[in-house]
């Protein structure tokens, strides 16, 4: 019984990890940059929904939509105004995005202050199915996350833009030659990444805390998941997200509760040592 309960918790958590990491894997593949500001869009999404719900009294759905749209627009602006100028210089991009993440964190402190905040849950209560407890809030978040992930996958598979995105990710040079506006695709992908990070935050902020430095932990998790799954592999990313969530939950119950973070690092370092291309990375060749 305990095992089933833990697995269910791990799966619920994994869906949200997958959502967070999906945006990063798209950005990494398409832009070929190390975006260290990815966590900031997570933070922004949380603060926007905090602002709309608590300060302006909007309902959850409206606030959520507004937040992610805003994050999308900010992503567009950041790519155009900051990243585009230096995108070819890998080191400068890392420094810039790192600095930008810090700057935005401080701007948030400036605008909203630094105390811990939280949001009231969208759905209160717990379902009890044969002794297994399911928090409604987590179920709702998980469901929305899965819907978003499926939408993104369909979008990549079916639409013209989605195909162009995959092409840029897999073969940038070829994408230029078939007449894809690579810069435009990169800009939109960056914005889609911001959108996904923000939507994860909107779903999680009623469960977790909202505070200015909240974005670093998902950034690191997302990077770990992407490295684990193989850079640029969407399938690998999703599988790695669930695997990681399960490892965390199970190890914290069966081994030691303070180990969830340590086990994450250990897994990450082992993967880099043993299989640097990640579990599903097979991008070389062709």
């Amino acid at each position, binding site marked *: 019984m305990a095992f089933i309960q833990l697995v269910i918790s791990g799966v619920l958590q994994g869906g949200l990890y997958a959502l967070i990491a999906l945006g990063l894997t798209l950005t990494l593949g398409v832009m070929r940059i190390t975006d260290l500001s990815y966590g900031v869009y997570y933070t922004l999404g949380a603060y926007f929904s905090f602002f709309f719900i608590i300060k302006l009294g909007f309902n959850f759905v409206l606030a959520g939509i507004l937040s992610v749209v805003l994050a999308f627009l900010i992503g567009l602006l950041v790519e155009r105004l900051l990243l585009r100028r230096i995108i070819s210089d890998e080191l400068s991009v890392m420094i810039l995005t790192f600095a930008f993440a810090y700057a935005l964190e401080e701007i948030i402190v400036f605008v909203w202050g630094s105390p811990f905040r939280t949001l009231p849950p969208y759905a209160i209560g717990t379902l009890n199915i044969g002794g297994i407890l399911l928090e409604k809030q987590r179920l709702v978040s998980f469901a929305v996350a899965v819907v978003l992930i499926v939408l993104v996958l369909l979008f990549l598979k079916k639409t013209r833009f989605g195909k162009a995105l995959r092409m840029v990710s897999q073969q940038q040079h070829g994408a230029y*030659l078939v007449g894809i506006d690579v810069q435009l695709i990169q800009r939109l992908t960056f914005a889609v990444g911001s959108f996904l990070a923000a939507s994860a935050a909107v779903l999680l902020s009623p469960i977790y805390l909202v505070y200015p430095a909240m974005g670093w932990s998902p950034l690191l998790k997302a990077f770990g998941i992407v490295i684990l799954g193989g850079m640029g592999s969407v399938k690998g990313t999703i599988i790695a997200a669930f695997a990681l969530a399960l490892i965390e939950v199970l190890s914290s119950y069966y081994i030691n509760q303070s180990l969830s973070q340590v086990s994450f690092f250990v897994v990450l370092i082992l993967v880099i040592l043993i299989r640097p291309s990640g579990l599903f990375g097979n991008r070389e060749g*062709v």
Partner: protein
Amino acid sequence: MLEVKDLVVYYGKALALEKVSLLVKENEFVALVGPNGAGKTTLLNTISGLLTPAAGEILWNNSKINGIKPSEIVRLGISQCPEGRKLAPEMTVRENLEMGAFVRKDKKKIAEDLEKTFQLFPRLKERHLQLAGTLSGGERQMVAIARSLMSRPRLLMLDEPSLGLAPIIKEKIFEVIREINSTGTTVLLVEQDTQMAFQFADRAYVLETGNIVMHDKPEHLLGQSEFRKAYLGL
């Protein structure tokens, strides 16, 4: 149709092309030969808009096209089949071909062209749902050529289409290129296998370390002893 005038291109800080001029006329089959590192690929990439020239100009039907985005250049009717195929490995053959028609909007005509392409390369029809990364070298080259045709180019630039292929497949590829040329598409071919290229070309340019050193009809070039020595080893 395409005219390149006094083109100067830097690759990073190194000078890659030093005053290159070249002319391709409507319906012509032009070959560009020369040793490794002479700047052939650089020239094609500059025409395709991937590199920005430091000086000189590129004219397409008498209007200047350097400085235009690569996607616009494809729209104008210049298509490049790059060296090393440059296919998307995790997309199917069909998807790769469809990406070739990215700049076109008319779905019906695209479907028609896809059928035509499959007639040209029956092998690809069999494998249209296979991932491009799992194909053999020759098949990949076919996909690459087919893809560059999907934009309905008026000028097709091919970069080393025979590289690394077995002789039989090589011949097959060249036959297809000739067929493409005969149905009204202008061809600019970059090739290391000079003999093969000269069987088909109307005119040829020789590029060495960033300079056009000779240009003439293939039969005239073959008549020159220094050329034969350098390129055919005879």
